[in-house]
């Protein structure tokens, strides 16, 4: 007998509760539905929800806590048997006991004490399981009996179910929000730890990025340098190149799709363009690293330019391709949202489609287009895969697109790949970079949302 069987029995009991609840309330009004406050099914669900939830809750509590409680008891017993031990030795004993109880390999010879402890452990386990199972069944039956009394034709079962649904919804969104807050807080705390090692102005405005901390005191190069400016500069540089590519192409294709393309072309071309958004970024990444970057380097060599094999240009170009769908599809929405009457008004004055686009539609859609650009920017700033593969690791502070640059995301990946100590400035700097990145994209998104909202008010 294990937990799944307990669960199955509980479920079977709730099915029974459902039918009984329904039958009971129908019997109470002699089958006349008009005498009921809610539909018969509501009474059934009422019985299920309020009997199953508490018993499941008990089972859940047991599942998360029984291991810990049993361990505590065992540790007391180990201490009583062997006297004072280090934490490490206690843990060894614990795992030996568990392994023996599970008939797994044991690290030491099986002594009578160990055998006894394993039996004790087994007994605790079985007992706690039965206690939990019986408690769950008891609560189930008790709740069922209580509910059987509660269920009368006047019970507002529908409203109670509504409450239960609401509770589930609130719980779900609370989990989502708390998780977000938790992530932000952990970023904040780790960043504060980092700032104890490195001064904030050294981090934000330092020109040299060389993140290393000494393993030994006498190590060469033991002092790291955490000036993140080259990283931010590299990120913004690549983003800028990406926008130079995606901005015109995305906007012009949006204009074509909304105003110039025939319906037939639009129904084919729009989904195709949106497929670009579905290409995994890792694919873009190796496309950038294996196709675009060598092509640019070869072309550079051909015309006599010195091009790094991992150039900012290659990463920027491919990232530009990646964010085209963001710009085109959001700009498309913005232009389509301009009322038809604006087009009619302009066309009726004898302007061409292009004049209408330039002088009426684009100005009217401008806030939407701007927010499309901002969202695409925040996407490009946070993009990792393409730059990891194509942008390189060298933290150069340069404005030459043919040089290698590195980005914030690339450095975070580099800092956290492999085994790390979690309290060195090197590892902690990843959190600081992450927080800075988060703040940048958050600001871009907030501005974009604000612009969109302002824009919406204009026509409503």
């Amino acid at each position, binding site marked *: 007998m294990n937990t799944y069987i307990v669960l199955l029995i509980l479920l079977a009991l709730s099915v029974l509760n459902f039918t009984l609840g329904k039958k009971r309330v129908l019997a109470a009004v002699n089958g006349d539905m008009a005498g009921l406050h809610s539909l018969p099914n509501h009474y059934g669900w009422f019985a299920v929800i309020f009997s199953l939830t508490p018993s499941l809750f008990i089972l859940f509590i047991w599942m998360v806590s029984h291991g810990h409680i049993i361990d505590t008891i065992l540790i007391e017993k180990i201490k009583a048997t062997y006297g004072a031990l280090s934490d490490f030795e206690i843990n060894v004993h614990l795992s030996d006991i568990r392994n023996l109880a599970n008939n797994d390999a044991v690290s030491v010879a099986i002594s009578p004490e160990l055998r006894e402890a394993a039996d004790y452990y087994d007994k605790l386990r079985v007992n706690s399981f039965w206690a939990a199972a019986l408690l769950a069944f008891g609560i189930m039956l008790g709740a069922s009996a209580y509910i059987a009394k509660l269920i009368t034709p006047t019970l507002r079962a529908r409203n109670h179910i509504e409450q239960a649904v609401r509770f589930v919804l609130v719980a779900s969104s609370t989990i989502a929000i708390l998780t977000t807050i938790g992530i932000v807080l952990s970023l904040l705390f780790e960043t504060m730890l980092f700032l104890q090692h490195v001064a904030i102005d050294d981090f934000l405005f330092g020109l040299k990025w060389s993140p290393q901390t000494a393993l030994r005191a006498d190590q060469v190069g033991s002092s790291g340098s955490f000036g993140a400016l080259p990283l931010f500069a590299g990120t913004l540089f690549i983003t800028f190149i990406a926008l130079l590519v995606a901005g015109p192409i995305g906007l012009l294709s949006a204009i074509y799709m909304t105003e110039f393309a025939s319906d037939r072309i639009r129904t084919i071309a729009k989904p195709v363009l949106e497929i670009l958004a579905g290409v995994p970024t890792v694919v873009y990444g190796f496309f950038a690293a294996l196709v675009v970057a060598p092509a640019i380097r070869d072309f550079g060599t051909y015309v006599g330019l010195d091009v790094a094999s991992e150039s900012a240009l290659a990463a920027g170009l491919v990232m530009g391709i990646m964010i085209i769908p963001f710009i085109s599809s959001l700009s498309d929405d913005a232009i389509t949202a301009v*009322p038809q*009457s604006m087009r*009619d*008004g302009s066309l009726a*004055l*004898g302007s061409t489609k292009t004049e209408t686009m330039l*002088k009426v539609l684009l*100005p009217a859609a401008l806030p939407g287009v701007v927010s499309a650009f901002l969202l695409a920017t925040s996407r490009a700033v946070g993009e990792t895969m393409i730059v990891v593969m194509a942008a390189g690791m060298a933290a150069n502070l340069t404005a030459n697109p043919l040089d290698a640059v590195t980005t914030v995301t690339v450095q975070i990946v580099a800092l956290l790949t492999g085994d790390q100590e979690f309290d060195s400035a090197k590892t902690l700097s990843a959190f600081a970079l992450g927080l800075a990145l988060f703040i940048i994209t958050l600001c871009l998104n907030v501005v974009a949302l604000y612009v969109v909202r302002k824009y919406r008010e204009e026509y409503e």
Partner: protein
Amino acid sequence: MNIQAADTNITTDREPKMQARRVNVFYGDTHALKDVNLDIYADEVTALIGPSGCGKSTFLRCLNRMNDTVASCRVKGVMTLDNEDIYSKQVDVVQLRARVGMVFQKPNPFPKSIYDNVAYGPRIHGLARKGDELDEIVFTSLQKAGLWDEVKDRLDTSGTALSGGQQQRLCIARAIAVNPEVILMDEPCSALDPIATAKIEELIDELKGHYAIVIVTHSMQQAARVSQKTAFFHLGNLVEYGDTVEIFTNPQEPKTKDYITGRYG
């Protein structure tokens, strides 16, 4: 192009500004207008009346080829402006719309300043070479539209900030600014309150003579008040066309009589 008088039952000694002969319009498979013959005179207001879906707006939108923007729309027959076929290949639709302006059912000022709204057309067509010429055009257009006194102190505020009636007069000023020969109005008062409506009707009266005006209206009182000629459409047919006074006092067709006396529609 000459259209033989024998084609039609309309006889007149004056030269019409626009003519429609055997005009048929299809939206996909729907036959929206059937063999419509109609003359529009330069110094008159022509009202198009009829129940919803009768084709009067469709006909109006044929006169400046706004139906071109509807992909499924096909127009057959002959339509002329000053005896020139407006559907021939030689005609530039952009120039046609500069000559035949349009005011829509719902006021649709651009989200630009009042000044820029009126200056939009003249700028596009290069009607003003210097800034003060443009100022002059904006001034006269707003004045003709009876809006100047109300907005002269706030020409740089947005056109969308005006009241509905003011917006519609701004749209009329915008149409006038291009100096058209014909102005089409598609139920210009249906979104306005009675006072704003009265102002627009007054304005139409003042504009009469300077421009040929064609107005689609649901209000028979309005047709009777502002127009000299009235055309009654029903189910895509032009049922009756003649002097407004005649149509309203002595309709020849029983359908017309039923409609104007409020029996249906």
